[in-house]
């Protein structure tokens, strides 16, 4: 089967429970919004393929599966991640303060060159705002990452956020490719056996 994309990026969503990670994911992947998710049941990851400068980029975006609630995100979750969306809720001060803890968690577990971005979600709830846009910007500057305020509910700048992150990863990757650093890799196990006939030397050992 021919590949239908040029690049595959694994992205993660990180942040406190209830900041709207799953809603951001649904807005981006299905252009839908649903407030009935109490937690993240049954959602593993979502896929959306986007066009960037003539390249097809398949974004595989992973959700926390609720394991952020008691800070029990597996180290395995971070493996191979190329980009991370750090999400807080602008109406929840605590979720903003916790971004620092999440960044520490990322530094401990994710690859050192993972691309990060800060999202202040629920920006449609201006009247309930607890975290000013300036503080969001300031924090992003502190960590040298990009910042955007989004609303998954009102569909504000969610697209822009993911496209920005994807573009930055792509730029970084192309720079790396130029430096000809072949990526290391393992393999995911598939249902189908390899196409190649098993070359067990038992099956055909004419010499012997």
């Amino acid at each position, binding site marked *: 089967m021919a590949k239908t994309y040029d690049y595959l990026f694994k992205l993660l969503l990180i942040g*406190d*429970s209830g900041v709207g990670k799953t809603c951001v994911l*649904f807005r981006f992947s*299905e252009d*839908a*919004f*649903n*407030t*009935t998710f109490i*937690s*993240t*049941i*049954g*959602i*593993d*990851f*979502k*896929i959306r393929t986007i066009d960037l400068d003539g390249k097809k980029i398949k974004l595989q975006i992973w959700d926390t*599966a*609720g*394991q952020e*609630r*008691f*800070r*029990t995100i*597996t*180290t*395995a*979750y971070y*493996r*191979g991640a190329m980009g991370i969306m750090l999400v807080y809720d602008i109406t929840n001060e*605590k979720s903003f303060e*916790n971004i620092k803890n999440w960044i520490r968690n990322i530094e*401990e577990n994710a690859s050192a060159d993972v691309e990060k971005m800060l999202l202040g979600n629920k920006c449609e709830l201006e009247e309930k705002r607890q975290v000013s846009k300036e503080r969001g910007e300031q924090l992003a500057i502190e960590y040298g990452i990009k910042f955007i305020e989004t609303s998954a*509910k*009102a*569909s504000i700048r969610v697209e822009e956020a993911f496209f920005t992150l994807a573009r930055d990863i792509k730029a970084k990757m192309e720079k790396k490719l130029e430096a000809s650093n072949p990526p*290391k*890799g*393992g*393999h*995911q*196990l*598939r*249902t189908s*056996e*390899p196409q190649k006939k*098993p*070359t*067990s*030397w*038992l*099956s*055909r*050992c004419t*010499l*012997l």
Partner: protein
Amino acid sequence: MDNNQLPTKFDLIVIGTGLIESILSAAASRIGKTVLHIDSNDYYGCNWASFNLQTLHNFTVSKLETDNSDDDCLRIGNNLFDIKNFKTTWHFSDAQSNNPEETEISVTQEDLLAHSRRFNIDLVPKIHYARGDFVQLLISSNIARYVEYRSVSRVLTYLNGQLEVVPCSRSDVFANNKVSVIEKRMLMKLLTSLEKIEERLQDENQCKKSFFEFLKDERLSPSLIHYVLYAMARCENNDSVKQGIESTKRFLHSLGRFGKTPFLFSLYGSGETAQAFCRLSAVFGAIFALNQTSLKGLKTTDEKLTHILNGDQEIFAEQFVLGAQYAPQKFMKKLEIQQFISRAVFITDRSLLPSEQEHLTLLMFPPEEGKNLITIIEMGHLTGTCPKGFYLVHLTSKQISSPHEDFQHVVQKLFNHEDKEAPAILWSCYFSLPGIDNLDVCESLPENLFLCSGPDLDLDYDASIKKAKEIFIKMYPDLEFLPRAPDPEEIIIGDDHEAENKEEDKSV
């Protein structure tokens, strides 16, 4: 996080995130059971975990709080299954400074610690048969999406004082100039007729023979016997012929699926595997809470467990699954376990058998000098378990006296520091893992409590899968064990969602 209170009613409470507990958590959650999965450690995996260098170097066996005086509950935890004889050492010899011209060996302890996070050091390194039950389960349950694998690229043995590549694939046979054409023929004849041999043995009632004697009777040359007995069948000298043939068949059956050898290793270390099952469990709604240091005890009524005490909370469930180390002391009829697994891990500066490409090596070191067969796995940076330029070497065997003594002869033969070609050990770690093949140390348990054994000596997880399945069947006799989880694109959010979505559109 503000909301630290856990819900208080579940179908199943799992304590411990070892492999078998994690499989059960996933299996129960997958069929719609509500699951609470907790661990007193702040990491996943219990005795099956992987650690970075810094963490493992400072590893101490964690203890549950036992000083509370609440005696009307069964205290959780026992010390039977603790890791013992744990010792780590840096080996930066002064010899380096005596050789100023050898600038290449300028690594220091600080250099290694600076890369600490790039190390993923397994307490229990496992290798999987490409067509074994574990790999089949990963694929059939769709858990394979959470972990990546690399093929073991060569199998070695130690023969006549040197390391030899064991021919696994046809090309290996061609490349192998240590085996004569006649020997190749003999080997082929044996391996292609194992089924027939099995039948014949039943007729002749020869089953009492050891596999070693059998191979000798088949008139295989000493080096062939060596390859088959130790490297393919992983047998000790007195293992039975039945066992030998079974494991040889297992080896052959897994050839030609994913790589040159029949074996796979999980990228970033074996500790990832338990986590993959935990992830599936969480995706299907299980609640995870690590670092639960105030886990106190279990409450029973009429021979059944009813709930656990976790801090101030009482949390109820129908069934309980506990890692063996969490079993209340009261259920332990013995005070000690006899069988331990000797383990050692080394960080080295080069491969045991350097070659142009980086290899992931499985070396079966034959029993000699009164020692047991030793499984050695050498992994380089491509496995995601150590930084480039270094190797991790894992040694595992059934304990005779102590890990140090059990492996001493191997260290002398393979890591002899007077031999400039041999790898230098930069850091070493020795420990004894409690070997629990069966839980005969336990008294009869409440009917809704199930204990999971810890790591075994097997190369792979197949026996652990079997144990998990047995417990699952006892808990949920009529339900399917880890049916295939749907792919994300197959999940369609229900109609009410769409209706709501339309409303949403109007309001915008």
